[in-house]
């Protein structure tokens, strides 16, 4: 069977779901169930008695087969991210941590230097580190060397719905990586998710596209189908795109001329 391998965890689903931006927790839980996702991201927030329904830990625990992947969203430095990771592991017991450090609240682009520093520390501490980064092939290899369990390059900016704008860089990262590449952020439609899997990535993380859809549970199901199709196509060996046009005069005639 074809599993997504992260550390010692094997996942049959290659769709990871984010839990933010949903209209309410009930819809979010339905979407998670419909998606078949086995890895779900959550953020850390201060306890607020007035909004007790925001506390997702207990409700998510009712869904079978879910592993939590807390993120460090809110942190703008490596030190803050490391602290958040410790708190998150304390609460969830899960070794997964999505290192997400975006100091600029406008575009939410990840800080590569703080991210690298945080990942280096957390990997040594035994976390399964999943860094959120721009699609930078060299940064991806640096993070792999540092001991991350995967790299999570963005397809395009969070919530932008621009799809696989970084496709060329993503394909380089995928080709060169020894660890799973999880395309995160910017995916708008199931066909884009399928395209990412067809490129050979290990999984996709989708949040906004499901949360703000007209019918999130149905959209989650659509994404699940697309991810399965994309992965199958990749494994089946896609037909190559055709090459350049033929030269005007034959290039290989020298092979007939014997020396």
């Amino acid at each position, binding site marked *: 069977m074809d599993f997504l391998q992260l550390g010692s965890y094997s996942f049959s689903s290659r769709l990871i779901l984010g839990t933010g931006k949903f209209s309410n927790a009930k819809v979010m839980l339905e979407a998670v169930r419909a998606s078949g996702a086995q890895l779900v991201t959550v953020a850390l927030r201060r306890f607020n008695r007035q909004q007790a329904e925001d506390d997702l830990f207990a409700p998510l625990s009712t869904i079978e087969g879910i592993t939590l992947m807390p993120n460090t969203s809110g942190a703008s430095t490596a030190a803050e991210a490391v602290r958040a990771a410790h708190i998150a592991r304390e609460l969830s017991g899960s070794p997964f941590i999505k290192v997400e450090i975006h100091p600029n609240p406008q575009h939410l682009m990840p800080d590569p230097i703080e991210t690298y520093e945080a990942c280096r520390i957390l990997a040594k501490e035994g976390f399964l580190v999943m860094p959120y980064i721009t699609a930078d092939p*060299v940064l991806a*290899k640096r993070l792999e*060397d540092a001991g991350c369990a995967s790299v999570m390059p963005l397809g395009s900016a969070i919530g932008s719905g621009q799809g696989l704008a970084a496709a060329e860089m993503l394909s380089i990262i995928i080709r*060169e*990586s*020894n660890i799973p590449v999880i395309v995160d952020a910017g995916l708008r439609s199931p066909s884009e998710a399928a395209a990412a899997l067809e490129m050979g990535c290990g999984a996709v993380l989708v949040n906004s596209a499901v949360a703000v859809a007209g019918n999130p549970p149905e959209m989650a199901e659509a994404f699940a189908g697309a991810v399965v199709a994309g992965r199958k196509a990749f*494994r089946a*060996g896609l037909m*190559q795109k055709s*090459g*350049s*046009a*033929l*030269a005007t005069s*034959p*290039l*290989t005639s*020298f*092979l007939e*001329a*014997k*020396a």
Partner: protein
Amino acid sequence: MSISPEWLTDDRDSAELARMLAPSSSSTLESLAAESKAITLRRFGRTISLYAPLYLSNHCSSGCAYCGFASDRNTLRRRLEPEEIGREILAMKKIGISDILLLTGERTKLADFDYLRRSVEIAAKSMQRVSVEAFPMSVSEYRMLAECGCTGVTIYQETYNRERYESLHRWGPKKDFLDRLETPARALEGGIKTVGLGVLLGLSEPLEDALMLYRHVRHLARRYWRAGISVSFPRIRPQTGGYEPPFPVDDHFLARMIFSFRITLPDIELVLSTRESGTFRDGMAGLAITRMSIASRTTVGGYHDPENNEKGQFDVSDNRSAEEFCNTLRSRNIEPVFKNWDPAYNGPAYGKNTEIHPEKLKPCH
């Protein structure tokens, strides 16, 4: 017998190459040539980098069935002394060469690691780029070589077919298939910047060897992501001793293999030596090949005193002088390049773990 590594046997990544090389392939040679040419032009431009081999010694402890220098062959054995090396290098510089490949056989008392290292030191004084094609070494030996100015290591697996490999390497240290397989990785781990891989075409079924060679390249590229990797295509030529290759590779297959490698490995340096004829080399330059040897001697030394009648490791097919060859390249709108980077950058690259140790950047004594 320990198992071959998974990266060598996993056929998923090499599926596209397999399709291009299959006898039933629908891609014509001409269409592969056109695509290969387009990729080469985009990635490498209209240049070919040039180098020349210098055989330091033909002493050898191994018994490779196909080699003119095998230890059971009746050949005059000698090695170049430091002054002779200096003279050879001067002669090579006179004809424009500044990128040199130093060759020896397997490790012997007379041509051992210290001899090789001293030779690299001498060459690095006046050559821009110094590579070696010699015996497999340890990581720390490669690091010492890198510190002395060695920037490249060429080591051919000869064949990736394990049974064929073991029957061809009848005795000596080269008999160990897995040790040889791991050698390029050791060189890169030791800080050598580029490695050259290849199979000796004719030894085994070529399609199989091509696929495994491709997988070796991909494996090293993913594991040593800062490394330069080149692939050569040596084809067994007539040599003293008369080894008949059991799987002879014709020009058409060789061309198809080279084009397919260019298409599936667009960033890799592809190398052709003077084993091949002038016509073949001229044709392939600009279509896929980006690096070639020139004015080669496969005898020990031979540049300083070109009239010597010794037998070489193999017979050179393209005997043109450096000047003739360069003029031909220029007439085909290709610029010959002798120098790639400043030797001030020579020295160990990082291994897999990137930690800078300033005290290790001392110059070699």
